C-alpha cells in the first residue's frame, strides 16, 4: 500500500509543479487523439450517411466489416501502419514514421470504424419516415442529411466519445508507429508504459491520473453538449 500512497503523493507534486515534460506529453496526447477523432468523425460520419441513405448490393457485407472494424486491435493497426510507412514501404517516401502524423494516421484508422459503426446505428434508428418527411417539407438533399444528423445528435456524440476514448487510451499503435521518442512522439500512454517498466511508479501514476482526468473532461464536455436542453 505504501507504494501506492507514495506514488500518489509524488504524482500530485509533479502535477502541481506543472512539470514542463508532463505538460508537453499531455498536450501532444490531446492533439494527436483530438485530430485523429476529428478525421474519424468526418470519415466515419460520411460513410455512415452513405450507408444509411443508399441501398446497393453488398451493403450488408460492408456493414459487417465495419462492425468488425470497431474492434480492431491497436497492435494490428500499428503493425499495418508501420509496414505502410516503412522506409521502403508503399508510403515510405512520406517519411512520417515515428512522427505525430503517423500516430494520427494509426489512431484515425482505429477510431473511424467505431464512429462509423455507431453513427450508422444512430441514423438507422431514426424513424423510417423521417427522411421522406424532411424531403416533403422542401429540403434539398444536403439539407435533408444535415437535419438527419441533427436529429441523431445524441447518439452521434456518443460515437465521438467512443472514438476519442478508444484512441486516447490506446498504446500499442502509438508505441509502434510513434516510437515513444522523448519530446517528439511521447504521449501519456506510451510514457506510462515506459515509466512503469523503469519502476518509476510515481511518474506513471501521475501520468495515469492525467489521462483519466483528460478522458473524463473531454467526455464531460461532450456529455454536456449532448444533454443540453434535455429535461427528464
Amino acid at each position, binding site marked *: 500500500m505504501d507504494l501506492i500512497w507514495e506514488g500518489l503523493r509524488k504524482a500530485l507534486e509533479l502535477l502541481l509543479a506543472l512539470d514542463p515534460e508532463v505538460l508537453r506529453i499531455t498536450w501532444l496526447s490531446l492533439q494527436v487523439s483530438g485530430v485523429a477523432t476529428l478525421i474519424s468523425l468526418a470519415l466515419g460520419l460520411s460513410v455512415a450517411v452513405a450507408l444509411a441513405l443508399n441501398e446497393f448490393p453488398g451493403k450488408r457485407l460492408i456493414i459487417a466489416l465495419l462492425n468488425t472494424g470497431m474492434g480492431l486491435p491497436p497492435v494490428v493497426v500499428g503493425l499495418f501502419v508501420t509496414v505502410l510507412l516503412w522506409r521502403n514501404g508503399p508510403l515510405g517516401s512520406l517519411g512520417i514514421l515515428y512522427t505525430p502524423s503517423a500516430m494520427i494516421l494509426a489512431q484515425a484508422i482505429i477510431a473511424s470504424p467505431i464512429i462509423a459503426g455507431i453513427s450508422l446505428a444512430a441514423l438507422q434508428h431514426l424513424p423510417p419516415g423521417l427522411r421522406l418527411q424532411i424531403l416533403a417539407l422542401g429540403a434539398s438533399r444536403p439539407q435533408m442529411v444535415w437535419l438527419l444528423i441533427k*436529429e441523431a445528435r445524441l447518439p452521434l456524440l456518443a460515437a465521438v466519445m467512443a472514438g476519442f476514448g478508444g484512441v486516447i487510451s490506446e498504446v500499442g499503435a502509438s508505441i509502434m508507429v510513434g516510437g515513444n521518442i522523448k519530446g517528439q512522439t511521447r504521449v501519456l500512454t506510451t510514457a506510462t508504459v515506459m515509466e512503469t517498466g523503469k519502476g518509476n511508479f510515481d511518474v506513471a501514476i501521475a501520468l495515469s491520473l492525467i489521462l483519466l482526468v483528460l478522458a473524463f473532461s473531454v467526455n464531460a464536455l461532450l456529455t454536456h453538449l449532448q444533454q443540453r436542453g434535455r*429535461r427528464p
Partner: protein
Amino acid sequence: MTRERILEARDLTVHRGAVPVLDIPELDLRVGEVLALMGPNGAGKTTLMLTLAGLLAPSSGSVSFRGSVLQAKAGREAFRRRTTMVFQDPLLFDATVAQNIASGLKLRGLSATERKPKVEAWAQRLGLGALLDRPAHQLSGGEAQRTALARAFVLDPEILFLDEPFSALDPQAREELTGDLGHLLAETGTTAVIATHDQGEAARLAHRLAVMKEGRIIQRGGLRKVTNHPEDPFVAAFVGMETLLKGQVVDCGEGLFTMRVRKGTGSGEVMAPGEVRPGQTVLVGVRPEHVALSLHSDKGSSARNAFPGAVTKVIPRGPFFKIELDCGFFLTAFVTAQSLSELELRPGRPVVASFKATSVHLIRREGLGPEV
C-alpha cells in the same frame, strides 16, 4: 364548374423488384378540391401518394404539376417546395413546437423575423398557442399531429398530401382533428389528397373519392356518387354499404324493378330503381342508415320493402348502434340509443326492417336476360 387541373398522373406504374405495386392509367386533381384515396392496407394508397408528392420516382409514366411534367430529381425538388405532406406518424423534430412549425419555412430560407408571425398565427389556428416553447417529445399524440398540421399549413402549400394523418390517434382526438382539418381545408381552399381507410373521415373531408385495391383505382367520382352507387361489391363494402342482396329480376318497368331474393329456405321480393331486364341476375346494396326498424310492419309507410326478422347482434358505433339482423338474409341497420331502448333491441328480438325502394342501389347486373 371545371377548375384548372393542378396535378395529372398518366400511365403511372411502380414496381417493387419485379412486382407491380401500382398501376394508375389516369388521375387528375383540380385546384381547390380534396381527393380521398380509400382502400384497405396494402391497396397502394401510400405508394400512390408518395409518387404524386414527388417523393417516389415512378417506374414508368408521368406526373405533371400545373401542366409541366416533373422531370427527374431537380423537378421533383422544386415541386416539393410548393407542396408538402403530413404522415400518419407526426415525425416531429427533436425541438420545440415553434421550431417544428418553422422548419419548412427555414428550409425555404425565410429569416427568423419572417418566420415568427406565420408560425404564431398557425399555432393559434391549431390551438397550439400556449405550447410554442414545449419540446415536441412532451406532446400528446393529438398535439403532436396538430403541430405536424401547422408545420404543413404554414407553408401555404399548393397541394397538401395527407397520408392517414389521424389513424394513430385515439377516437376523441381523431374526431376533433378531423373537424379542424375540415375547417382549415375549407377556409384556405387548399387542394389536398388524403389517404384514409375511414369512410367517415373521407365523407367529412373529401369532395371526390378514389377507391383502391391491389394498386389500382377501381372506382372514383364524387363523394356522394361513390358512396351511394358503388360499382362493385368491394367498393360497396368499403364505403359502408353493408347489406348486399343478390337475386333475379322478376318484374320491371318505369325505372323500377322487383327482384326475388333468397330468404331463408323460401324467397322474398325487393323493389329497387334501375334499368334492368327480367331474368337478369342483379346485385343491390342498402346502406345501414337507410334501414328503419319497427316492431310491426306499417302498411301506411312509404317503404316498399319490409321484412320481418330477428336481431342477431347489437354493436355500439360511436353515437349509434349497428344492429345485425336475420331476415332470412343478412341485413344491417343503424339506430340511435333512443331507438335501441324504445324498441328494446337485443339479440333474438323480433323486428321488421324496412327501406324505401329508392334506398336500394343497383351495383351490378349479370346476364342479358330475355329480350322484352
